[in-house]
């Protein structure tokens, strides 16, 4: 007993009984549904939940569907314009909010920029619909893009501001000290350092626009159906392998873009 050679069993105080099981359950809960959709998209059986064999057929079928392609095209157009405009506006706002001395009403401005995140989507959808109808703007890609730009702003703003806040303010001051003017300091010092944040914000804004359903559903008109709205229509008519394949594609695009965005936002300055 006294001459023990083996190390005593470590009793880690950071371990709580059942916690790992709970966490495992959580991650299964989080990913099982997503993976299941992707899994079923390769099921050759039309009755979508009974697995009978592997097939890749649904993808060419879906990608050959003119309606799907038109919806996808609409989604890309909207997401591109909305995210680019929102990111430019958000970058300027983030510069205003982080450089120089602290402002009074800073909280108010930050709150307003986060407003689109706080207001329930259904309320925004109703308000935007009423607005476009009231000013007599026909519902279409333009109204969708305008509505998307609003809620894209906070998604672009947050990573850009985070990046700016993590940036050493004396870098900009050093540029001034070395005779750079405001514009030169921005383009030669701030912007190069800010790029990952801007790209990350742009990607996140692009994703939320691409995936948006509720607001789009309200402010889209005939001919301006986006991919999520189109998928919604498909789901309502029933569970089919085509829905699974389009859904899996949409999931894949989001997964890739968000991974890139999050990796970018984590990259060291």
């Amino acid at each position: 007993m006294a001459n023990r050679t083996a190390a005593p069993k470590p009793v880690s105080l950071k371990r709580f009984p059942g916690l790992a099981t709970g966490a495992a359950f959580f991650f299964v809960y989080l990913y099982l549904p997503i993976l299941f959709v992707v899994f079923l998209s390769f099921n050759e059986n039309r009755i979508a939940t009974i697995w009978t064999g592997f097939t890749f057929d649904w993808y060419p079928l879906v990608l050959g569907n003119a309606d799907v392609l038109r919806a996808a095209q609409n989604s890309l157009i909207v997401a591109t314009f909305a995210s680019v405009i929102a990111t430019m506006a958000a970058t300027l706002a983030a510069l205003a909010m982080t450089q120089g001395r602290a402002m009074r009403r800073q909280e108010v401005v930050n709150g307003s920029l986060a407003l689109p995140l706080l207001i329930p989507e259904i309320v925004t959808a109703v308000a935007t619909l009423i607005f476009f109808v009231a000013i007599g703007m026909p519902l279409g890609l333009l109204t969708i893009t305008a509505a998307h730009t609003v809620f894209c702003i906070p998604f672009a703003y947050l990573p850009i501001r985070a990046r700016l806040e993590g940036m050493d303010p004396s870098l900009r001051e050093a540029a001034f000290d070395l005779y750079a003017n405001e514009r030169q300091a921005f383009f030669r010092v701030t912007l190069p350092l800010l790029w990952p944040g801007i790209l990350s914000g742009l990607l996140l804004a692009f994703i939320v626009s691409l995936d948006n359903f509720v607001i789009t559903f309200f402010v889209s008109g005939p001919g301006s159906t986006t991919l999520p709205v189109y998928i919604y229509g498909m789901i309502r008519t029933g569970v089919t392998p085509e829905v699974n394949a389009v859904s899996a594609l949409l999931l894949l695009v989001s997964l890739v873009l968000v991974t890139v965005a999050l990796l970018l936002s984590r990259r060291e300055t």
Partner: protein
Amino acid sequence: MSTREAQAERPVEPQAAPQSAPQAAKGAMRGDLGAVRREMARRLALLTPAMGIIILVMVVPLALMLTYSFLTSARYGGVIWEFSTDAYLQFLFVRDLDDSLLFNDTYLRIFARSFGLSLATMGVALLIGFPAALFIALQPPKYRTMLIFLVTIPFWTNLLVRNYAWILLLRDRGLINNTLMDLGVISQPLPLIYNNFGITLGLVYSFIPFMVLPIYASLEKLDWRLVEAAYDLGANRWEALKRVIIPLAKPGIIAGSVLVFVPSLGAYITPQLLGGGRNLMIGNLIQLQFGASQNWPFGAALAFILLAIVLLALVLWALRARRSGTSLKEVEIG
């Protein structure tokens, strides 16, 4: 001799310093007034695009929505520009044949159910989310980042698709019922979908990252030495959890609860897909007024009531957070 000099000097220094510092600052401020003004102008210019878009396409529409809620409904959608409180009356009353108002709880019930479901969602999300957040916070830093990554990623995928996935799992011939029947555990499919159970499950699934992330943020900041101190003073794991970890994670727990409750209350997709259209929530009721019912003022009024409830919840939370010294920034996603 040199020491005596040093001693004689010492008391003088602290008196001299505070006099000169404010004077210098005041002088700088007076000289900089022009620069300050220029700075403000620059800031305003930079803020204009973002604030302009938000005001024009969000704040103005919200004001317009409030206006619409006080107008008269046109028969086939839209409004007639005539002041009316009918939309708000309709929320609680129906007009009898003789034009008298009879109390009607149809809509109130839908609101109550939405509240109930959102509270249930919040509770379930907390029960699942807290252990997950704690588990992640206890991992070595390099794994933590990766796990948080994994928690965040589903949030960025399509909400519609994520809810659709649950149809595949929950319906009568879905994965769960099929598996259970194949195993012989049940002979009839369990009613997992198109009821409150299905909605709650879907809502929890939709918003659980909002619960995990703020709780994790609180736990990650938690000084583990405090937990060691609790152990040192005789607390076992359960006591340490109850007396130290949970109280210190409270700001995160409250933030997470609000962030799950608020979007649940206004949910549209989940009750639509997993409630089977029979179990309405506020969101579906609002949508109906712009679809089948074509009663825009009522829809606007409902949306406004929902907004008021949500903002009230957020303001109460913000006040609490300010009092307890936590910042809203800690709970942002992304």
